[in-house]
């Protein structure tokens, strides 16, 4: 498994790791039952704090994607819920692809599209309802 | 392993001084045989008396040199933080350095005189072990004050060349002061035996000057305690 964490983007490293593990599970690079490297091993490999890996793993365990077995390591458990989530993500990505194509045709640059998304995402749900 | 470190630090200085002193003594006593005038009475003992004076000068210079170093000098070259990060008290660090220095000073006093004894005995000269012992004890008992002074200087003054310069300067100053004003307490004369030498036989006579030696050693002890206090208070 190849993970690449970018410390300068401003996104916490543990979130980046979680996203990348999730992405791997969604695309099938990680299958049900696969074992992820131990916290220490992965931390040394990525040269990040062990707490980063530990936090990512425990959050994913909480979300049901990983199973942490004492002494053995972290195992991927792609549950039914996650599988359907993966389908939703596939659908969402197709929709996004169409939307992005449309925005590009309208004359927006990729950077502008990206910033617009980020700005909208930061806008909490309650304010939208107002 | 602080003893080992102290040894490694002073090894070169010590061995050089030891070699110089020993060779000087052997050669001086060996060659001086030819200089002995038949009209001198007790000429051999007078030779020994003169030798002691030379030994004292060289020994004092040597122990002042040996007293240099320590944490303050390490600060000047930038490595004091290694020594100070060790889980050892500053007093202990200084104490071991002083201990090694004293052992080396003792060897520097005993070995040259032992050489003289050996060379003289082989040449069948009238050397008496008690005289040799007397000279050695005078040297060590009285002279360690100079070593203590050097240690104190090394704790106060930073700078690889400033500290020994000040220390040697103080030795000179002490010699001048003792000669000018403090004649009865002249450490130099104590150490060389000038107080007790019988001008006819040139033998050290009388009792061993316990009081003088005690005074000198007390001064040494005070200076060493002062050094500990200085080192403990200092910031690095």
């Amino acid at each position, binding site marked *: 498994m190849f993970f690449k964490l970018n410390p*300068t983007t401003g996104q916490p490293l543990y979130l980046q790791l979680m996203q990348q593990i999730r992405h791997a599970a969604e695309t099938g690079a990680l299958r049900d039952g696969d074992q992820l490297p131990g916290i220490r091993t992965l931390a040394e490999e990525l040269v990040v704090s062990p707490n980063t890996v530990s936090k990512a793993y425990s959050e994913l365990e909480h979300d049901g994607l990983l199973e942490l077995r004492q002494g053995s390591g972290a195992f991927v458990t792609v549950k039914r819920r996650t599988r359907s989530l993966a389908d939703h993500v596939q659908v969402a990505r197709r929709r996004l692809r169409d939307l992005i194509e449309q925005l590009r045709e309208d004359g927006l640059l990729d950077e502008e599209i990206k910033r617009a998304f980020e700005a909208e995402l930061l806008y909490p749900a309650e304010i939208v309802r107002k | *392993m602080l003893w080992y470190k102290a040894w490694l630090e002073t090894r070169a200085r010590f061995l050089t001084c030891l070699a110089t002193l020993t060779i000087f003594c052997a050669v001086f006593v060996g060659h001086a045989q030819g200089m002995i005038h038949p009209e001198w009475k007790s000429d051999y003992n007078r030779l020994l008396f003169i030798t002691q004076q030379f030994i004292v000068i060289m020994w004092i210079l040597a122990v002042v040199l040996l007293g240099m170093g320590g944490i303050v000098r390490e600060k000047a070259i930038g490595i004091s933080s290694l020594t100070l990060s*060790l889980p050892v008290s500053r007093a202990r660090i200084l104490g071991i350095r002083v201990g090694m220095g004293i052992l080396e000073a003792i060897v520097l006093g005993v070995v040259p005189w032992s050489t003289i004894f050996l060379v003289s005995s082989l040449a069948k000269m009238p050397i008496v072990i008690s005289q040799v012992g007397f000279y050695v004890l005078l040297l060590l008992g009285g002279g360690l004050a100079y070593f203590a002074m050097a240690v104190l200087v090394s704790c106060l003054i930073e700078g690889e060349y400033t500290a020994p310069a000040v220390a040697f300067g103080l030795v000179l100053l002490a010699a001048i002061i003792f000669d000018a004003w403090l004649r009865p307490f002249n450490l130099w004369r104590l150490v060389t035996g000038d107080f007790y030498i019988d001008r006819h036989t040139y033998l050290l006579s009388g009792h061993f000057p316990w009081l003088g030696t005690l005074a000198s050693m007390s001064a040494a002890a005070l200076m060493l305690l002062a050094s500990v206090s200085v080192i403990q208070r200092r910031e*690095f």
Partner: protein
Amino acid sequence: MTNSPVIVTRDLTKLYGSLAAVHGLNLSVGPHRITAFLGQNGAGKSTTIKMLLGMVRPTCGEGTVLGKRITDAEENCEMRCKVACVAENKPLYGYMTVEQTLRFASSFYPDWRTDVARSLLSEYKLPPQRKVKALSKGMRTKLALLLAFARRPELLILDEPSEGLDPVGIEHLLQMLVAQAAEGVAIFFSSHQIAEVERVADHVCILNNGRLLVDASLDQLRQSYRRIDLVFASAPPEREFRIAGVEKLQTKGHQLSVFASRNAEAVIERARDLDAVSVEVAPVGLREIFLESVKEN
């Protein structure tokens, strides 16, 4: 393993004449994590570390390391058994050989691991019989770091550890730090290299002119600092944006740049209410956080 902080200081101050090298420092460094002490040269990082290790006496204030008071010589000495530290200039005894240096260091610490020392020695390709004064600068740095990494202390304190290391050396240094952290060692290192800190630190303390400006987990900083660039149809109403969390406001023509340490949502809401033409939000990297914190001070 306890959960009490490994380093605690209260109003720690060091004055040199009228200059405050360290001013009212209140630190609380937690165990089981990597804490970075960021600051420019002369900010007071080395002075703080020296006070913690008993080399310099604080003018006022107090502190404890592993529960032992730093101002008590005996307690400080006890504590140094369980603390490994590497000073900024990577001190070593020039007259000792590499082998002698290792034997010397190992004799003082019960937590010395001979197997680790040996493997690091061959990994760094340090010639055991060569005197330290004959080693190159890079090798000396590696040896000085080896003395700390061959141990398994409770706390590892490093002052500018990457100084004098090439990129390969820095990578290896960070890997060693991570390895130590994985074994439960608390790490406190001072640096002015933002890149390294961003990679491995869990917690960041920013020091400037002897004062602590920022003391937060790196994740928290990443999640709350934001730069919000706004464009207005007319002159930007700067006054309206002086709300909690906003650190800096900059106006250029129709553009208003807001630098917020927290509460970005409130800024965005205000911008919408004031009919901003464009609202762009971007996360802020540690470099910018550091530069802005230090500038306004």
